[in-house]
């Protein structure tokens, strides 16, 4: 290694005296060098002239190629698609029109022709924007259709120009506002799944209008199911003269929300609509005393603890007096009932007796295990906190057992029922598609009830629909073995429960032998009509609405009907 380095210093030594090596000018070698030098120089000049000629000839063309680069940075968002891959939200590049007021020559002419080409533009505002000569830049319209932009371009008004921007559009449907949310003018997600996308760092800062290259975010909903639920609930509101309705369909194994509708439905991407009070999401942000559907939980609790069996007898002959409360039945049978009869006749007395065997402490622990005593975390944000009794007294224990005194979000209630009927594995509702196989791959889920209890509950829910006298009979759909429970709750107004206004509900599970889906239908203030024989109870409105929904949605979800078991 040392040897090759040794000659180097001596070479540097000789390099110090160039005269010694190359000789002085005037020698024969010098003429040759002069020639070479002038040749090189001539060549250099030729190259420079050539370049000049080239620039003169094609320079203009080259500068035409220089397009106006969009300044500033934008936000590119991934597409959102439904579980079947249908496009729900996407970024498209749209021209935005801006003006340089100082370059507007004929203000009147510009305003007149522009407002003619763009009828949406307010002429007065346009005149105000364009007459301010101090400004050099003012947006006139952001995100316009390319055809409109072409029309403006053809007007040839000086001082107007376009900048291409990413705009978020929601082509999938009109009723997904509560799920997808909206983005602000800079394409930042502000609500719903859009806000979730931002929170997960799935958005990219981009120069100019560059679409995101990320894979799409796959939502759990099925757009067709969502549409069916929307149209059936809308029809139910009309049919039963109700004030409003809400509903959802959920996969009981994974917690995926297949459809979720809170009427009135509104389009995604509309910030103003999202913030309207009437568009409050009744499933996630509203809390309600759901009434008798809650008995499902009380029964599961009692079966799981072993304090009750389906054939155990509960006396429902007399109303139950607890302090100043009297618990009575809506359609009293005034006789001892088996637990199954308590369920299918929806006896408050029987359920309260069952709850007193459970006890307040174990009841609370069970509801807590089901996630009903805490706000529900979802991708759309945290659900509303439940409104629970101030002190879990004897009376509250009894009323909670049949769905009064504890107000919860319908979504968390649906999740609780799903966690019971799916074999007892606690699931958390999700608005994102769960990849097949990954649902049970992670940490083993909490077991909230035993599989045996889950089987008893499925049979009980099925009996309520299939057996004569069951309150859920109108929810039957041939082939799909629907099971479910009705709920008819008085709506609490100022100063307690007023008038005959009710919130009716129906929670359904299908098919009951191997539950796949749960549906929940809620109707606010339905009236008695000719079709219901003047009844307002859930069995007459929420239950048949559920049947219509399942009839249309089940084939769509790929469930095969099975007619082998028409009765039970």
């Amino acid at each position, binding site marked *: 290694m040392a040897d090759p380095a040794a000659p180097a210093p001596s070479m540097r030594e000789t390099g110090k005296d160039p005269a010694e090596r190359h000789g002085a000018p005037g020698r024969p070698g010098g003429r040759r060098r002069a020639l070479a030098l002038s040749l090189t120089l001539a060549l250099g000049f030729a190259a420079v002239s050539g370049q000049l000629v080239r620039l003169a000839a094609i320079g203009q063309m080259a500068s035409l190629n220089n397009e106006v680069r969009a300044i500033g940075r934008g936000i590119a968002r991934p597409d959102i698609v439904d579980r079947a891959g249908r496009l729900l939200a996407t970024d498209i590049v749209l021209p935005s029109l801006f003006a340089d007021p100082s370059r507007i020559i004929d203000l009147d002419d510009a305003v007149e022709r522009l407002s003619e080409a763009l009828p949406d533009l307010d002429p007065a505002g346009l005149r105000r924007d364009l007459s301010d000569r101090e400004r050099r830049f003012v947006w006139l319209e952001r995100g316009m259709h390319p055809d409109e932009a072409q029309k403006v371009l053809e007007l040839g008004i000086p001082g107007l120009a376009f900048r291409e921007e990413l705009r978020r559009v929601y082509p999938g449907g009109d009723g997904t506002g509560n799920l997808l949310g909206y983005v602000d003018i800079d394409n930042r997600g502000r609500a719903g799944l859009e806000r979730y996308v931002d929170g997960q760092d799935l958005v990219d800062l981009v120069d100019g209008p560059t679409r995101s290259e990320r894979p799409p975010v796959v939502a759990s909903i099925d757009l067709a199911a969502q549409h069916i639920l929307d149209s059936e609930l809308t029809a139910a509101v009309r049919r039963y003269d109700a004030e409003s309705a809400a509903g959802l369909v959920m996969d009981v194994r994974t917690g995926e929300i297949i459809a979720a509708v809170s009427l009135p439905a509104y389009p995604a991407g509309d910030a103003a609509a999202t913030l309207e009070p009437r568009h409050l999401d009744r499933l996630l942000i509203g809390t309600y005393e759901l009434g008798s559907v809650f008995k499902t939980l009380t029964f599961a609790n009692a079966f799981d603890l072993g304090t009750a069996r389906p054939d155990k007898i509960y006396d429902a002959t007399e109303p139950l007096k607890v302090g100043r409360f009297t618990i009575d039945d809506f359609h009293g049978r005034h006789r001892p009932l088996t637990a199954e009869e308590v369920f299918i006749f929806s006896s408050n007395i029987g359920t309260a007796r069952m709850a007193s065997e459970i006890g307040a402490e174990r009841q609370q622990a069970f509801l807590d295990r089901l996630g009903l005593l805490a706000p529900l975390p979802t991708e759309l944000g945290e659900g509303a906190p439940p409104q629970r009794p101030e002190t879990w007294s004897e009376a509250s224990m009894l009323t909670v057992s049949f769905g009064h005194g504890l107000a919860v979000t319908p979504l968390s209630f649906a999740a609780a029922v799903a966690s019971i009927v799916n074999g007892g594995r606690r699931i958390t509702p999700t608005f994102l598609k769960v990849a097949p196989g990954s649902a049970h791959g992670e940490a083993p889920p909490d077991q909230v009830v035993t599989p045996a209890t889950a089987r008893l509950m499925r049979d009980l829910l099925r009996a309520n629909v299939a057996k004569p006298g069951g309150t859920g009979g109108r929810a039957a759909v041939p082939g799909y073995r629907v099971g479910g429970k009705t709920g008819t709750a008085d709506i609490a107004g100022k100063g307690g429960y007023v008038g005959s206004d009710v919130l009716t509900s129906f929670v359904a599970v299908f098919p009951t032998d191997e539950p796949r889906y749960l549906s929940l239908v809620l109707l606010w203030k339905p009236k008695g009509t000719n079709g219901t024989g003047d009844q307002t109870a859930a069995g007459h409105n929420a239950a048949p609405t559920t049947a219509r929904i399942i009839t249309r949605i089940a*084939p769509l979800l790929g469930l095969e009907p099975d007619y082998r078991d028409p009765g039970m």
Partner: protein
Amino acid sequence: MKRRLTFPAIGIALISALALYVVKYDTRRIDEERRRLEHEIADLERAIALDRAELANLARPGRIERLAAAHLKLAPVTPDQLGAVGDIPWREEAMPPSDGKEH
């Protein structure tokens, strides 16, 4: 000897300068072509994104339902229209031979 070497060297230098010039401008031309193509691709991608959005908008379930009701003699599938392959009866001529007692 030296002269004989110099002129070919100058020749080679000239040729390589020319070659460099040609290659450089070729590169520039190709680069311009690349930019043009990239621009075209970006334009097409935007057009595709726009078309996909329009397609999704036209394929809205609500719109299809309305159009189907107005123009087609078709209705959504009902559960009783679904069945398993095993439920389909054999055609008469393809029936497995039987002893006749069952008919």
